[in-house]
């Protein structure tokens, strides 16, 4: 049983929590491996498969290519991959509709903003994060087409996921440009963003895991991506894991704005209503949120 990366307070940590929950409930054990190099992806998958682990779950699209190679070699082992589609008979591909969740938090951001300017801080500048950004921008503009979205990325190397200092600096820059709600989709860097927002007395939006508790009353919401649920389900299914693509969308509870005691005071009834409405719209298809990765373009800037 496997995971990749851990403790970033969002994405990978969520996966770990899912696995933990399963382990606690079932009393069984799972094995986790954090990879250190590209070559280890294949190595780890094979070793785990050989050791009899079943199913094997991995997080991150970077595994896709390798999984395409490894999965056929172990037809009896079930694999699950988050964030990418791998078409193999023994692989379950779990994808999230981040654009939908981001759209919803975009609506909240626009409604919470007094200045009409909101911010987005992405981690590494890659398409996946543009998907967040684009959904968010669409949400914001749906409330007020004139609202401005300031977009920043931490960097172009994997270090961009782990530079809270830069994250906080970017956030401060956005604050000085008038942003009063900032959405951080930046892994470990996001911690710095939320901190800077709290220091600057403005609102922030967390990502992946529910990060509302980090700065109670100052994190508007978190765009949760229920990787924990996904992983939990994978482990629960065990060897009976169904192959194919599993879309974790709004309807399936895959993505959602986090509402809890920490942000209860921040979320106005109007906001809640707007979110509920949009949720319905998306679920019944009347609102279509564009997915950046389908054409590498975003309808709103």
């Amino acid at each position, binding site marked *: 049983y496997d995971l990749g990366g*851990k*403790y*970033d307070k969002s994405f990978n*940590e969520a996966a770990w929590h899912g696995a933990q929950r399963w382990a606690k409930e079932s009393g069984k054990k799972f094995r986790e491996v954090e990879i250190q190099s590209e070559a280890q992806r294949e190595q780890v998958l094979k070793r785990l498969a050989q050791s009899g682990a079943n199913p094997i779950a991995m997080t991150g699209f970077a595994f896709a290519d390798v999984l395409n190679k490894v999965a056929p070699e172990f037809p009896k082992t079930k694999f699950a991959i988050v964030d990418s589609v791998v078409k193999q008979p023994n692989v379950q591909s779990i994808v999230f509709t981040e654009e939908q969740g981001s759209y919803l938090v975009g609506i909240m951001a626009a409604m919470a903003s007094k200045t009409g300017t909101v911010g987005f801080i992405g981690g590494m*500048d890659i398409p996946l994060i543009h998907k967040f950004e684009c959904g968010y921008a669409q949400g914001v503009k749906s409330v007020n087409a004139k609202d401005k979205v300031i*977009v*920043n*990325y931490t*960097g*172009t190397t994997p*270090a961009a996921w*782990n*530079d*809270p*200092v*830069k994250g*906080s*600096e*970017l956030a*401060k*820059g956005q604050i*000085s*440009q008038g942003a009063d709600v900032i959405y951080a989709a930046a892994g*470990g860097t996001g*911690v*710095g963003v939320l*901190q800077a927002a709290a220091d600057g007395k403005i609102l922030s939006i967390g990502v992946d895991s529910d990060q509302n508790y*980090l700065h109670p009353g100052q994190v508007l919401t978190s765009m949760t991506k229920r990787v924990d649920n996904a992983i939990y389900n994978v482990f629960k299914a065990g060897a009976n894991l169904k192959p194919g693509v599993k879309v974790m969308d709004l309807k399936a509870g895959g993505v959602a704005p986090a509402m809890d005691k920490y942000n209860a005071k921040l979320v106005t009834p109007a906001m809640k209503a707007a979110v509920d409405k949009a949720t319905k719209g998306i679920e019944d298809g009347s609102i279509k949120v564009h997915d950046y990765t389908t054409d590498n373009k975003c309808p709103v800037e």
Partner: protein
Amino acid sequence: MSFDTIVSILDSTIRLGTPLLLACLAGLFSERSGIFDIGLEGKMLVAAFFSAAVAYVTGNAWLGLLAGIASSMVFAFIHGLASITFRGNQLISGVAINMLASGITVLIGQHWFHLGGITPALSGGARFQDVALPFAQALKGVPYLGLVYDQLISGHSVLVYVGFLCVPATWWVLFKTRFGLRLRAVGENPAAVDTAGVSVVALRYSAIAIAGILCGIAGTYLSCSLAAGFGREMTAGRGYIALAALIFAKWRPWYALGATMLFGLLDAVSNRYQTIDIGMLHIPNQFMSAVPFILTVVILAGFVGKAIPPRAGGEPYVKER
């Protein structure tokens, strides 16, 4: 570009430039004494970790600072042992220290906090809060100057002011005191110092200790002031940039201020303007994030020319006639 924007960019420049400045001055002391120090990065990193860890546990940022300085000095001492006492290769030692720091921080961090190598978030007294200088509020209304005073000059962490004060202090120590004279001499010609009856080893160790202290402050600033806690590899190459700045500054304190603030400014600007559209031309984010590095090369090639390092730099001192 409005005045506000300029002030906020400069404000960010100061924040981003301060750790570079402290590290750069650390490198200055070390290299002026003839010890190359590519271990700045590692020393900052351990300091960032231990300061955050201790600050979290004690809830006191000042204790954190002490711990940061102490840990950085331990690493400085290892470097000294290797490069002074045992006359090893200073570059190897520096590389080793950087690796050691990035490994040990996560290892211990995981062992202590079980958060994958990071420390829990710091809050309240465990962080250095920004200090408002006197009259900042009162002067706020004054056009331009008020803004500059309130935003730019006031309202930084105390460590920022420490960093800036270190510049004249370094200058004074280096050029106005006996210690400074000997330090500069030992980096140029240790034999001259030795034959003059002064201990080369003691001088170099003290230089390295000062470097340890300054790196300790720099690391603490990163984790207990700029950020609220330690993150893996949170120095993110700042030690190397500080070294670049040091060469840029030709190993002089005031120039070091200029060079590090220039790097801070480049960083701040590229943070602010991540993409630029000029008509048809779209300048991508990747380019803007590389701008500080490109500019460094251009400036180096165009304006700085040959920087002459302290002559005895990198060479262990062995007696000869």
